[in-house]
């Protein structure tokens, strides 16, 4: 493999792996939500077993926490600490930097799925007619969409402000995004908003692909694809390296 790219990937992975808060965000919270809400049946999921609703939603949450929050916060601080400025004078180049970040995100997502899917299965999740290839397509689009949002914020806001914004948006999307709370339970105005958010679209698409229980999969695919195309373009346009 290209030595420079490999060196950059190693650095990206080291930074994530040694960062306790990032591990809590990308693994701890999804596992906790999955276990808690499947054992404590308080969510009006409308399914016989809450895990059937929760598992795809938490996988969507995992994608959001890695591609948007973890990547966005990390890159935002790299900007604040002039890490990107320093790397810009080396032969690394933007192409390899971006490639390394993509590989970093994909590796973390792999670890998340390797942990979350068995936990969900152990909690009684029975995927029916699961189309894993379709789900993978959803994850790819979701990753593009959330990475675009995370990097747009990271490329514009200063360190702490970026940190707050990423966490705030994460919480809002978690609550109104159809990830752990069904669209039906939201007031109509909020539901209309939730339908066009990437979080709800990804959760819906995954639910459709894995459990056959999507709310409005056709529309959700369109919403998700639109975010996946638009968000990276906006990030590319607005991102500032210093």
């Amino acid at each position, binding site marked *: 493999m290209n030595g*420079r790219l490999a*060196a*950059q990937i190693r650095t990206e992975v080291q*930074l994530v792996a040694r*960062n306790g808060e990032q591990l809590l965000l990308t693994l701890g919270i999804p596992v906790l939500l999955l276990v808690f809400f499947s054992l404590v049946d308080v969510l009006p999921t409308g399914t016989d077993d809450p895990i059937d609703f929760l598992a795809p939603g938490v996988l969507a949450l995992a994608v959001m926490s890695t591609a948007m929050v973890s990547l966005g916060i990390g890159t935002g*601080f790299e900007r604040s*600490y002039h890490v990107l400025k320093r790397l810009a*004078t*080396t032969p690394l*180049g933007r192409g390899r930097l971006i490639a390394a970040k993509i590989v970093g995100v994909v590796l973390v997502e792999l670890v998340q799925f390797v942990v979350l899917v068995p936990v969900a299965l152990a909690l009684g999740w029975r995927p029916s007619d699961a189309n894993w290839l379709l789900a993978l397509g959803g994850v790819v689009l979701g990753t593009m969409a959330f990475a675009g949002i995370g990097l747009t914020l990271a490329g514009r806001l200063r360190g702490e402000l970026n940190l707050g914004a990423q966490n705030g948006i994460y919480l809002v999307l978690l609550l109104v995004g159809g990830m752990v709370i069904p669209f039906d339970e939201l007031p109509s105005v909020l539901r209309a908003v939730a339908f066009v958010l990437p979080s709800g679209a990804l959760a819906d698409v995954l639910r459709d692909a894995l459990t056959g229980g999507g709310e409005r999969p056709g529309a959700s695919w369109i919403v998700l694809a639109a975010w996946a195309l638009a968000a990276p373009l906006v990030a590319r346009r607005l991102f500032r390296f210093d």
Partner: protein
Amino acid sequence: MSAVEIVDLVVRYGELVAVAGVSFTAEHGAVTAVLGPNGAGKTTTIETCEGYRRPTSGSVRVLGLDPATEQARLSERMGVMLQEGGVYPSARVRDTVRHYCALYDRGVAADDLVAAVGLQERAAATWRRLSGGEQQRLSLALALAARPDVAFLDEPTAGVDVHGRDTIRSIVRRLADAGCAVVLATHELDEAERLADRVIIFDHGQVVADGTLDELRRGHDEIRFRSADGIDLEDLVRSTGLVATATGNGEYVVSSATDPHALARLTAWLGDRGLPLVDLRAGAQRLEDVFRRLTSGGDDG
């Protein structure tokens, strides 16, 4: 060919003219200090050489390459030390050096580089745990990772204690002796005086002096002495022909007269009148005096 060739460089940020027509060169094997008050245009000039900024007009060539359009080729042979460090706080010393060494085709062996800047004992420490001096040494190590032919060091000894400064200076000296063109931006005269083969003084976006230390000091000879406050300078002129001015705190300067006879007349005059001679210095001006004379003091901060 000079390693760095800058001709009539102008850099504007909107209305603000940061660099207003600067020309100079820096040679291989020499330390060229770019000296000036804060806000004089030093960092902007250096960042243009590094490829961060495009000239508004004028030309910049580094190793014969245009940094704005040929940065990829230039970066292979260029070492950079930013004022801001540029290392992630949770990154460890050895990992960071290893990372940078792997980014260059002819990168140095990482462990050798860690040892060269004296950080072996701190190899497992994270950036945020390093002292100011250690951070500067790590930052310098990253600039050396390329085995550079040209190095731009921005305030390399800022916030470093006396011993750390000596270490950094000797590394920079060795780098230049190995043939690298070292361009060092600093607002500390002491640094330039100890390290530089050549000094370029900036003020208000322009070069106000350019030469070796000796060249800059020459032609401005003086006698500087300290005695009692309020000595009779008119009597001094009448008796010895020496014109002195008081600079305060009992210090006096006699300009353009450093021959031994003038000095003898001065000390005889002081002795005859029973005046003390606390401090005496004759010869070329200190770089500090040259600097004060040429620059406006700038907007410190």
